[in-house]
């Protein structure tokens, strides 16, 4: 009934392109990075070392990303229900 947190993170960089995003992701242990086409400097980071769903936020990962001077914003993605009709 409580919130569920995923291993997906929204990461917005101050500047820099895909290469910069990949460097940031690699340095913080994220296995994958994907540009969000609708968001300037917005990237989808996913962490293969984290459970796909967990009850608690991964504060460590979020804080580390937020402390990185290249990162403007980092948000761990919350899970929610979608039902097939």
């Amino acid at each position, binding site marked *: 009934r409580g919130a569920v947190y995923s291993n997906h993170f929204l990461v917005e960089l101050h500047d820099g392109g895909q290469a910069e995003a990949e460097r940031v992701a690699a340095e913080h242990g994220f296995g994958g990075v*994907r540009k969000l*086409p*609708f968001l300037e400097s917005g990237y*989808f980071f996913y962490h293969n070392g984290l459970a796909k769903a967990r009850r608690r936020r991964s504060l460590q990962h979020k804080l580390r990303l937020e402390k990185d001077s290249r990162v403007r914003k980092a948000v761990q993605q*919350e*899970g*929610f229900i*979608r*039902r*097939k009709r």
Partner: protein
Amino acid sequence: GYRDINDIDINMNDPLFTKQWYLINTGQADGTPGLDLNVAEAWELGYTGKGVTIGIMDDGIDYLHPDLASNYNAKASYDFSSNDPYPYPRYTDDWFNSHGTRCAGEVSAAANNNICGVGVAYNSKVAGIRMLDQPFMTDIIEASSISHMPQVIDIYSASWGPTDNGKTVDGPRELTLQAMADGVNKVTVLIIWVLGQNGVYMLELKTVTWEHNAFAQIIKLSPYFKVPLMFTLQYFGIDFIATTDLYGNCTLRHSGTSAAAPEAAGVFALALEANLHLTWRDMQHLTVLTSKRNQLHDEVHRWRRNGVGLEFNHLFGYGVLDAGAMVKMAKDWKTVPERFHCVGGSIQEPEKIPPSGKLFLTLTTDACEGKENFVRYLEHVQAVITVNSTRRGDLNINMTSPMGTKSILLSRRPRDDDSKVGFDKWPFMTTHTWGEDPRGTWALEIGFVGSQPQRGVLKEWTLMLHGTQSAPYIDQIVKDYQSKLAMSKKEELEEELDEAVERSLKSILSK
């Protein structure tokens, strides 16, 4: 203007074709003859979806299925949650991941190949965007899916949504909204969303679920009723659809609710083939102008005409889609004029909602006349409302336009017992005032419907107007003089003339 159903000369050798009553309804499966999408007429005119790709945002597509393989667009298919370019449905014991394959068949199943049935746009392509085969969704997956290859995917079809338990109030999150806005504004994409389930208690919920962001860019539709919508497809108890199924099979039992989105996507694919320059706004105009009352009837909610004569119904919107009429109109369609947005006014003083009777408020607007963002011909109207009550599900909200069109913004939802959250700046939307002049006095009525007396406070009502400054149909070519387009164009010409005379008189009098 309808042709006799027996005059339709479409013969397909696909074994389930005769069971697909929504394509051609001859009264099979206890249906009403003629109550179909009139796709036969569009097919006869040569439109079958060629050159159009529809993204099925679901649980994958059985792209090896012999009825789908030839129409599968592999390059535009993907799964963002697993980063898998081959989004074949993942195995489950109960075949639960058959949903996307079934939807794909409804839009793009090949014709005349002796396999299963026929898609509405049987020469279109389908892309599988796998996203629903996991226990939960994230905003970033939803947003990535709906923004995947918009240069290739013309229409996104979604047959899913939040839990429909009669009290969930949920909608797209921040990233998904950004992705949708980006898609429809930068690239011409069309998003088609099916609303709600068929449970009795869920009917009313649909008014506020995906509506909550008043996402005018989405063409919303409901296979069941009680939603202020653009249009509906309706099934009247014929709940199951014949289509393709997992592992090369066919089924007669796909949910009619789910089928509504791909079937509508198929109709719009036919229109896009007729005119590749159509935008999402053009498509909505075409929907309003070509949807038909057909034989849709409800004892309580009767058909009415809005201020410019367009026939609508609270339950059925502008009626059932008519593919034949749509492709004919789409062919010569000129893109509608630019859209403007105006805050028509706002009431922000708290007002008590009486336990019995109704709170009645009025708001007079000039629709930003004299300013750059003047709105003269309405498309969408939003009432942004903040309200709290002792029982949210008993709230009933209606709004009436200056031209006298009454829209039901929210009706009773018996399962919603919220007494704390209420609605916070909730943008209820109506399309039933389409084409009207918004200048004048708007009225809002809020009351309670239920067995127990309730209390509530309305804290805000802001009127948002969206539409054009110039007449949208004045340059359109009229071929059918009995059509809604002809009627609307005549109305526009008369109004333009009246206003020109008025301006001249004012000018003469001032001199």
